[in-house]
C-alpha cells in the first residue's frame, strides 16, 4: 500500500491499475503514474506487467513441456512426464471429441490455451498484496500480477482465435462460401442486409464473449480477493474473519481458474470446428 493509497478507494484503485508504458501527452515516453495518466496515453501504450507476466508464464509452460517432450520415453513414464502426458492426453481427447476435421494446429493450440491461461489465472491465488508490495519496495508503483484480469490480454488471445476462425473459414469454404454463409442465411437472398447483420453479430460476438468471459470471471475474483484483503485493516476479529474468507474463496477459486481455462479452450475448439464445417 503506497502512501497515496491508504484510503479504501485508493487501495482498490491501486490494485486495479496496470503498470503502463507509453507516450505522455507532452511527447515524452515513460511509465504512467496514475490510472488517469495511463488513460491519456491513448492506444499506443503497453501494460508492461500484463505482458511481462504472461510472457514469463508462457515461457514457464513452454520450458516445462518442451523439456519433458525432449526427454520423453516410451517406457513407463514417471514424475513430470506422467503429469505432462496426462494433460496432453486430456487435451487430445477433448479435441477429438469436438473437432472432427483434420488440422494439426488445433490440438497444440488447445494445449497452449489451456495451460497458459491456467497459469495466468493461477497467479490470482498468490496473495493480492505480496508481489505488488515487493515491487513497490523495488520502486515500481503499479503491478497487476494476473494477466487475465487485464481485458487486453484476454481480448488479445480472443482476437487471435478470431483471426484463425476467419482464416480457416475462408480456407475451407472459400471466400465465396464464407461470404455466402454470412449473407444468405437464415432468410435467403432477399433479406441480405438483415442476414449480414445477424451473422455479423454472431461472428463478432465469438471473440468478444470469449475474451470478456475470461476477463470478467477473473476480474471479479481478483476484486473479491482485494475486498477481503481490506478486512485485514479492520482489527483482529475482522482480520481473522477475513483470513478464513480468503482461504474459502481461494479454494473455490481453484475451481474457477481451471474451469475458465477449460471453457476458453473448449469454445476455441468449437468455434474452429464450426469454421471447418459448413453449418448450413
Amino acid at each position, binding site marked *: 500500500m503506497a502512501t497515496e493509497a491508504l484510503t479504501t478507494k485508493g487501495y482498490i484503485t491501486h490494485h486495479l491499475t496496470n503498470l503502463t508504458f507509453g507516450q505522455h501527452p507532452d511527447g515524452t515516453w515513460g511509465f504512467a503514474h496514475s490510472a488517469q495518466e495511463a488513460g491519456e496515453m491513448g492506444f499506443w501504450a503497453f501494460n508492461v506487467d500484463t505482458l511481462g507476466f*504472461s510472457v514469463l508464464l508462457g515461457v514457464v509452460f*513452454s520450458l516445462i513441456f518442451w523439456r519433458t517432450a525432449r526427454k520423453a520415453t*516410451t517406457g513407463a513414464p514417471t514424475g513430470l512426464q506422467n503429469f505432462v502426458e496426462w494433460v496432453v492426453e486430456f487435451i487430445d481427447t477433448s479435441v477429438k471429441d469436438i473437432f472432427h476435421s483434420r488440422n494439426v494446429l488445433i490440438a*497444440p493450440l488447445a494445449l497452449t*490455451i489451456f495451460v497458459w491461461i491456467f497459469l495466468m489465472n493461477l497467479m490470482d491465488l498468490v496473495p493480492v498484496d505480496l508481489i505488488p508490495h515487493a515491487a513497490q519496495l523495488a520502486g515500481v508503483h503499479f503491478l497487476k500480477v494476473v494477466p487475465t484480469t487485464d*481485458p487486453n*490480454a484476454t481480448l488479445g488471445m480472443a482476437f487471435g482465435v478470431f483471426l484463425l476462425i476467419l482464416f480457416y473459414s475462408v480456407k475451407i469454404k472459400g471466400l465465396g462460401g464464407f461470404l455466402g454463409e454470412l449473407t444468405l442465411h437464415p432468410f435467403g437472398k432477399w433479406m441480405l442486409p438483415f442476414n449480414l447483420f445477424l451473422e455479423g453479430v454472431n461472428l463478432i460476438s465469438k471473440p468478444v464473449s470469449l475474451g470478456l468471459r475470461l476477463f470478467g470471471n477473473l476480474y471479479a475474483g481478483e476484486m473479491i480477493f482485494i475486498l477481503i484483503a481490506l478486512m485485514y485493516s479492520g482489527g483482529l476479529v475482522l482480520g481473522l474473519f477475513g483470513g478464513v474468507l480468503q482461504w474459502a474463496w481461494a479454494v473455490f477459486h481453484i475451481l474457477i481458474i481451471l474451469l475458465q481455462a477449460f471453457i476458453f479452450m473448449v469454445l476455441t475448439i468449437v468455434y474452429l470446428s464450426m469454421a471447418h464445417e459448413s453449418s448450413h
Partner: protein
Amino acid sequence: MNINATMIGQMLTFVVFVWFCMKFIWPPLINVLAERTKKIADGLSAADRAEQDLELAQEKAVAQLKEAKQQAAEIIDQAHKRSSQLIDEAKSQAREEGDRLLKAAQAEIEQEFNRAREELRAKVAAIAVAGAEKVLGASVDAQAHSVLLDKLAAEL
C-alpha cells in the same frame, strides 16, 4: 483498464507460444503416447501368443511322453519275446546236442559190443577146439574142421 496496444502484444505472444507448442512440444509428446500404446498392444498380443505357445508345448510334451511310454512298452515286449525265443533255441540246441551225444554213445556201445562179440566168437572157437581136443584127446585140426568151427561160432 484501458484497451491499448497490450492487446496486440498479447496476440503476438499468443501466436509465438502456439507456434512453439505446435513445433516442439505437441508432436514428440503425442508420438510418445502413440508409440507406447502400440508397445503395450504388442506386448499384450505377445503375451497371448506366448500363452498359446505354452499350451501347445504342453500338449506336445504330453503326446511325446505318451509315445515314449508306448515305445518303451514295445521294446520291453520285444525283449521278452526275444529272450523266450533265445531260451527256446538254447533248449532245442541242448536237446539236439544231447540226442547227438546219446546216439554217438549208443553207436560206440554197439560197436564195442560187436567187437566184444567178434572177439568172443573168435575165442569161443578156440575154446571149443580146446574143449573138443580135451574130449577127443587128440588134436583137432583147425584147418580140417574150420567149416564146423565157423558154423559153431556163427551160432553163438
